[in-house]
């Protein structure tokens, strides 16, 4: 149970500014995911919380107490590493007991806790084995077990699932979620996988180049991305972008380029009126496009040419060309489309995103 506060956190390595002015409040029992492309500073941030990396400037506090100068062992945290970091010369039992022994717990208590954690994770039969005799998923569980026996105030996870194969990753993701619901401990989780971030996080922190881009719950990030980077990073397949010029056609605001002309409906139009005549970045998620039907207003449809068809079963992904832009549309699996065919697509008017062409901030 703990409340973690990062205040104006900075980290500089020789010549590179890896983490820039990060401010973040992690509430008690919250599961917060730091997500971003590699080199965005998410792991460095996590390592600073763990005490494995010195803080260049700023402050980290846990439960109101500044921990900047505390050794990792005194912060009462547990960390699960990407490569599990199991001690290869110790049995599973000893791996899990190591932290308790270091903290001078008595023997019966150690045994009770290790047995209990092993039961929660379903690894009782493995306690006598060595790490190299375990499969990837089992090692992952042992690494988790080693973290939970200590009953720490904060769990730190550094890409714990990225060494597992796809099927196991999905399974462990669910287990992690269940485990967190059961333990109710504050957790900070680092990943580059946006699906992991969206499914696990109570709140998700998107980072890029050492800067926090947006903090919010998963749906907030998906529905109201703060900038073009977040919009493109969250969601799969990624959002389509097209440069458009805002125009005034018959009293209605339009977004227009070589391939499309969309009439912006009521509420959004008011917001965009200030940008008349300027170039903006239009963002449309693939799932907000569909093949035009008879009832769709012409102002919300445009022509496209199909280039690639990806049949995924639950949906079809159409890679299409719209004027000079490439777009992806996720359409109904019953759609009959042929390569090189002209197809009229319609857009969901409520779900258009606009970004400033220069600052890339959402409008």
């Amino acid at each position, binding site marked *: 149970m703990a409340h973690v506060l990062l205040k104006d956190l900075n980290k500089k390595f020789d010549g590179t500014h890896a983490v820039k002015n990060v401010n973040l409040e992690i509430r008690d029992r919250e599961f917060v995911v730091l997500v971003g492309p590699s080199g965005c500073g998410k792991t460095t941030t996590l390592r600073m919380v*763990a*005490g*494995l990396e010195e803080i260049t400037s700023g402050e980290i506090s846990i439960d109101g107490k500044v921990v900047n100068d505390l*050794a*990792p*062992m005194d*912060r009462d*945290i*547990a*960390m699960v*590493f*990407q*490569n*599990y*970091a*199991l*001690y*290869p*010369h110790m049995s599973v039992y000893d791996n899990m007991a*190591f*932290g308790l022994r*270091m*903290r001078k717990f008595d023997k019966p208590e150690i045994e009770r806790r290790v047995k209990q954690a092993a039961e929660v994770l379903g690894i009782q039969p493995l306690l006598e084995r060595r*790490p*190299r005799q375990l499969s990837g998923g089992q090692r992952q569980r042992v690494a988790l077990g*080693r973290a939970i026996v*200590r009953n720490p105030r904060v769990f730190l996870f550094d890409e714990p699932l990225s060494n597992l194969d796809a099927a196991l990753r999905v399974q462990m993701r669910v287990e992690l979620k269940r485990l967190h619901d059961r333990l109710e401990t504050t957790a900070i989780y680092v990943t580059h996988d946006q699906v992991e971030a969206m499914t696990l996080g109570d709140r998700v922190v998107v980072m890029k180049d050492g800067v926090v881009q947006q903090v919010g719950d998963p749906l907030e990030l998906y529905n109201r991305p703060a900038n073009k980077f977040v919009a493109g990073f969250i969601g799969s397949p990624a959002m389509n972008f097209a440069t458009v010029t805002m125009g005034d056609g018959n009293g209605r605001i339009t977004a227009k380029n070589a391939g499309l002309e969309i009439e912006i409906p009521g509420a959004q139009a008011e917001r965009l009126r200030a940008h008349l005549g300027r170039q903006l970045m239009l963002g449309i998620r693939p799932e907000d496009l569909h093949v035009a039907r008879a009832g769709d207003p012409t102002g919300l449809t445009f022509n496209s040419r199909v280039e690639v068809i990806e049949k995924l079963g639950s949906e079809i992904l159409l890679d299409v060309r719209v004027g000079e832009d490439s777009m992806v549309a996720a359409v109904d699996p019953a759609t009959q489309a042929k390569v090189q065919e002209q197809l009229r697509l319609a857009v969901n008017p409520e779900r258009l995103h606009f970004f400033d062409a220069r600052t890339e901030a959402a409008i």
Partner: protein
Amino acid sequence: MIEGARWKKWLWFYLPMALFILGLLFPFYWMLVTTLKPDGELYRPWNHPLYSPFWTSAPTLDHIKNLLQDTLFNTWMLNTMLIAFAATLISLFCGVIAGYALARLQFRWAGLLGTAIFVTYLVPQTLLFIPLAEIIRDYNIGDTPWALILTYPTFLIPFCTWLMMGYFKTIPKELEECARIDGATRWQAMLLIILPIALPGILSAGIFAFTLSWNEFIYALVFLSSPEQKTVPVGVTSELIRGDVFYWGSLMAGALIGSIPVAIVYSFFVEHYVAGMTGSVKG
């Protein structure tokens, strides 16, 4: 096809390997055969009708008896063992700690220091013994085992440090970080986690250091003078070559018996030693 493959394997694998093994083992055979030959056979000229350099028709243990009874060979063996053991322990201790620091602690000149240590290893002993002799005289430890126990580390420590540094670098640093989060101090993490994992590396560094000190010649020759202080390499060569007379039989017996402890050490740790050289940590 299969016939051809077998023939090729013989030509390109077994035959070269046999030659290689022959070349490696021949010196030992030569030592053995010379040890067992009676003097009469040993000093036969090459054009004698019974000249037989590669075997003996009348094996004898006289040379070995000579070596053990008429020289201080047993004392030399004990001296060598004590000195090699002590020098190895000192060097391993320093090498492990220095190697760990160079591999793990991020201090300013770590890289440069590592290279500098390696460079000291390259200074030839034939040069270094001159200033060292002066130091040994100043500290009054000439002609005592300490003269070697304290000088051998001058080349063993750089060697062990370099080897251990390489080995520590193969151990993922997350193991140590995890231990420190688990509640271990830096020292505890090193002693309880890193050193047990580095055991193969430590063993191979130890074997190497032991062999190097066992075979060392120049320092032993220069720093020790009385027969009862000498080590095997120096004792055998200085006491069994008198003027221009070579007591080949006893010399070879000394060389043969002198190489036995090293052979034992090697065969004992060979598995660890190989693991140490390949530097594999299976997590």
